[in-house]
């Protein structure tokens, strides 16, 4: 039983370092992320000029663009995930705990929403409201809550039959109190695991939208868009693909590692594999 295991220092450190870098580097660096510089096209990593990772095909500093991309990706991922979490958990716990008709109606609504095609929906929203970052959060968040709602509902239903919930009823607690004090904390583990899976998944979704021209509008960039750009120039300038891809991989790995440790912390009786 690894009760005393502290949070994995490397993963936490790297994540914090990345967040810090995303905030500070663009501010420190003299180079902008969007202004093309025709003199400096396609430079390799060059210590003297401050282009630590070189420049891209428009002469923009790659490091700064990476950090900006990281900012946007993290922002979209966190906001969308939290939105979907909030809606999904409330929905799922209510449906799972109250059961009966309420459960049936709530979950049929989920089924209907599942059947809505995602991309056409985003296209419609974009047409109506223009290409906006906030719109992106809402669109992605509005779709991803469905998964967590189902998972949470399932967990709640099985929790509902457990003796300690019965004991809480015998102890005079109302349904709302039981949901808040007993059900939610016992869902913490699964919620955290879900979050650490969602964040990278949202980053990828956003990249996909960007590829289709629906996501963050250029010159604003995200990790996904950078990868998409780099992929199209893979033969000539592999650096443009490798750097954002490695960054994304490290980000995703650290998120998962942290999620694992957090779940152990919140669910003291569980053991990680």
């Amino acid at each position, binding site marked *: 039983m690894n009760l005393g295991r502290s949070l994995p220092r490397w993963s936490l450190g790297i994540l914090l370092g990345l967040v810090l870098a995303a905030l500070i580097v663009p501010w420190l660096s003299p180079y902008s992320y969007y202004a093309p510089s025709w003199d400096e096209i396609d430079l390799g990593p060059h210590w003297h000029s401050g282009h630590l990772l070189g420049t891209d095909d428009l002469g923009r500093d790659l490091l700064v663009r990476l950090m900006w991309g990281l900012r946007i990706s993290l922002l979209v991922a966190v906001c969308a995930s939290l939105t979907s979490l909030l809606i999904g958990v409330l929905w799922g716990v209510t449906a799972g705990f109250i059961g009966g008709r309420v459960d049936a109606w709530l979950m049929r609504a989920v089924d209907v929403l599942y059947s809505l095609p995602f991309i056409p929906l985003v296209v419609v929203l974009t047409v109506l409201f223009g290409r906006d970052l906030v719109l992106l959060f809402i669109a992605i968040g509005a779709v991803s809550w469905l998964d967590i709602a189902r998972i949470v509902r399932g967990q709640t239903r099985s929790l509902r039959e457990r*003796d300690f919930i019965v004991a809480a009823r015998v*102890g005079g607690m109302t349904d709302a109190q039981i949901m808040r*004090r*007993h059900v939610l904390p*016992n869902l913490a583990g699964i919620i955290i695991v879900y979050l650490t899976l969602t964040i990278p998944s949202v980053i990828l979704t956003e990249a996909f939208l960007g590829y289709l021209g629906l996501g963050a509008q250029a010159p604003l960039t995200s990790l996904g868009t950078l990868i998409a750009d780099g992929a199209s120039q893979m033969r000539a300038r592999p650096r443009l693909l490798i750097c954002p891809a490695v960054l994304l991989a490290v980000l995703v790995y650290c998120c998962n590692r942290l999620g694992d440790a957090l779940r152990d912390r919140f669910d003291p*009786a569980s053991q990680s594999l």
Partner: protein
Amino acid sequence: MSGPLLLEARDLRVDYPLPARGLQRAVGITALQQVSLTLADNQSLAVVGESGSGKSTLARALLRLLPLAAGQVLLRGEDLAILTAAELRQRRRDLQMIFQDPYASLDPAMTVAEILSQPLRVFAPQLTAAQRLDRCAAALQDVGLLPEHLQRHAHQFSGGQAQRIGIARALIAEPAVLVCDEPVSALDLPIRLQVLQLLAAQRAQRGLALLFIAHDLAAVRYLCERTLVLFAGRIMEQGPTATLFAHPRHPYTRTLLAASLRADPQAAQAAAAQRRALAPVVAEPAGQSGVEGCPWAPRCNLAQAQCWQQPPVLRQLGEVQVACHRAGETV
């Protein structure tokens, strides 16, 4: 009988609906029928039966955790069914429960302190956090644990200790009745004895009324003055424990007694011989299926034609009540 009636159940009936299959109409199983019992202050009543006898259903029905198809549950003369939800929650202070699986009844995400303070938050909201903590520490010491255990989680304790925490939680708001749903079945024998001793001590100390549900007659003998025997949702026999054990009137009660383990090799042999003598003799007479008779008939060594046709009525026979067509005969 000493004192006014604390808890009374009249003619309880609990049905479980079964989902309809295909085009068939939904049918139900009757888990309990015509069950009546009484419990006065400081009394202890055992409810004994196998799995499927309805004993856990009875516990939950008494605590109003299940809807009743018929009958009433009265706490100090008050019908629990006519109370509002809020009133019912307040009455729960007097009607607490301990469970069979010591770990499942404790929230794995909470510390012992949080678990024990829940009832206080509901039933004694006027207490400050510090006062609550004091009461929790006192409650733990009462059951033989230490105040430092307050910060631990349930899974860090042994089965016996976890059950003690459950008992501490049930007793912390000072209820009048404690319903025990097979609280020692999952424990080793020596630990079982300790927990039963704890329950007996708490009962003596607080003047608590106990409703003890078990399939193990031995624990019942240790703790309860009166016993009720359930089979297939019906009462088969009820009366003072000592009388029931010494002179069982119902064949099922005799079977239960013969099946209990003896701690002595020779006594064990005698019991085994008795079990052989109680083996059912008669197979179901042809053409009887569908007619409702005594539920014990298929396993009874005394079953007669009448037993297959008519369910027996619970009637008084000396100190006990028996539901058996042949109870009056000298066997």
